[in-house]
């Protein structure tokens, strides 16, 4: 060994228990490697696992995810509207395995941030040097009186894709013409801010085409909503007599439900729905609370330079579980945060300090089967928080020829193909 190679980085690597990979004469020494564990194999976690492995091939990367199949939420509103097959939403982890990522097909049940271990349901304990959490959301069951797990079998949320998506689709198919569909929208923050309104547009398209006497009512706990001018324009142009919405200031917030009788109650009235889609209030996935990385809001505060938890050392949180506003809770954001987080963990383990950068988000929403609009944001993480860059971002133009809406629908498809390919492909 010569001094030329013994730099600050090497010292830090050995101090953190991460010995540098090297052609040492003693093979055992080369066995000591960074143990990187990722919880949750969605858009955030699967991407993070891949990028950690790519950036640090001599580290061990373990992904804990209980489900063999992942059902993507983006484009699932098309499935609900009968425009797409659920099988196109399904992805797996074979490509990750082939890259040398260890998949633990189990649920993480606890995290000990002091001992730096994760325990899984089967009873095993996994040690880590760095842990990345991307558990997505959990619902606040009971926040709407009467809306618990069992209620979701009658009034689906369809806010985690899979069987719930199919259930809502089947209910719409079974509904008689002339029926009333109700979508209940929770207060912010929630996963995919424009998602409920994309869903309303696409269900309205289905109703207009197949059940023209039917109506759709949005009961909304928000006053304002994402892409509002674009959605409202589309609703009056495309579905003038189909969609109606009560915002929070018009007593739109649902406070209780009676699933067996199909009744949703606001503070003002009781409404009987033929199909009720209740999107419940949300919080970070339960494991984030167990790990002590969620705060009183139910979400996880992070340092946006590397998405490290501000509450626990050696834990990073990405995706929907984080407090990253103005970055929305989107698959685009989760995927980008994962890449940034993986590279910054690499930097940290190499003794480098993460530098500020610029991040973006783009979310497309369908208005009909072949038109879409988008929202774009550009953010800096330079000042300890994420902030929108003034003068950038925004919505698709309000006055636009059809070709622009068609193009954005095609872009959305390409985006879905690219992002799912990067995450799972």
């Amino acid at each position, binding site marked *: 060994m010569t001094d030329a*190679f013994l730099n600050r980085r090497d010292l830090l*690597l050995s101090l953190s228990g991460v010995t540098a990979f090297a052609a040492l004469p003693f093979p055992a020494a080369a066995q000591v490697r960074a143990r990187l564990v990722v919880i949750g194999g969605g858009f955030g976690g699967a991407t993070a696992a891949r990028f950690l492995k790519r950036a640090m091939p001599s580290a061990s990367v373990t992904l804990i995810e209980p489900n063999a199949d992942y059902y993507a939420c983006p484009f699932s509103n098309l499935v609900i509207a009968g425009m797409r097959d659920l099988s196109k939403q399904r992805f797996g982890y074979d490509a990750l395995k082939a890259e040398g990522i260890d998949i633990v097909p189990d649920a993480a049940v606890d995290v000990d941030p002091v001992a730096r271990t994760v325990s899984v349901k089967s009873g095993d304990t996994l040690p880590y040097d760095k842990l990345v959490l991307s558990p997505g959301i959990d619902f606040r069951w009971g926040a709407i009186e009467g809306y618990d797990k069992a209620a979701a079998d009658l009034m689906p949320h369809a806010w985690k894709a899979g069987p719930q998506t199919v259930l809502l689709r089947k209910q719409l198919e079974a509904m008689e013409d002339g029926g009333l569909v109700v979508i209940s929208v929770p207060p912010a923050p929630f996963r995919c801010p424009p998602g409920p309104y994309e869903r309303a547009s696409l269900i309205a398209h289905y109703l207009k085409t197949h059940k023209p006497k039917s109506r759709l009512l949005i009961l909304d706990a928000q006053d304002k909503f994402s892409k509002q001018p674009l959605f409202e324009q589309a609703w009056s142009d495309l579905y003038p007599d189909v969609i109606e919405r009560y915002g929070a200031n018009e007593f739109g917030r649902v406070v209780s439900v009676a699933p067996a009788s199909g009744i949703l109650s606001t503070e003002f009235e009781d409404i009987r729905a033929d199909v009720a889609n209740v999107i419940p209030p949300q919080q970070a996935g339960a494991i984030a609370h167990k790990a002590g990385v969620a705060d009183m809001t139910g979400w996880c505060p992070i340092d946006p330079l590397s998405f490290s938890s501000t509450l626990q050392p050696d834990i990073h949180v990405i995706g929907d579980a984080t407090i990253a506003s103005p970055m929305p809770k989107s698959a685009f954001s989760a995927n980008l945060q994962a*890449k940034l987080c993986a590279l910054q963990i690499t930097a940290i383990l190499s003794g480098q300090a993460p530098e500020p950068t610029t991040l973006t988000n783009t979310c497309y929403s369908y208005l009909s089967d072949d038109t879409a609009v988008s929202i774009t944001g550009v953010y800096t993480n330079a000042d300890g928080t994420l902030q929108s*860059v003034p003068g950038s971002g925004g919505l698709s133009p309000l006055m636009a020829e059809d070709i622009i809406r068609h193009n954005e629908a095609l872009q959305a498809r390409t*985006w879905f193909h690219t992002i799912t390919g990067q995450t799972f492909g």
Partner: protein
Amino acid sequence: MLKPSVKLTAFALFTLLVSACESAPAGTQTEDASGEVADLSAPAILALSCSGCHGPQGGAIASLEGRTSDQIRLSLLHYKSDVDGGSVMHRMMRGYTEADIDAISTYLAESVTE
């Protein structure tokens, strides 16, 4: 002799990001024994945002394969300065400085190759 476990060049990550191709760029940095490298430079991190949409296959979103840095720079600068434009790229580029655009263009041209 000790070698750092993490080697940095301007290539492997973007290859993973946007392209299935495997060739290395001419003479940027040394690879380690495994041939695996990670680029932690500011331009590489800045360009992460591009990779969510710009895949190798193109489609309705342009592929960046085979573009020179000048080609990329000119179109990004056009998006930034064209005040009437409403596309995703117009709205996005207004948030980037010319220095950012220079860095991204050079990086993408070097790292996204056939």
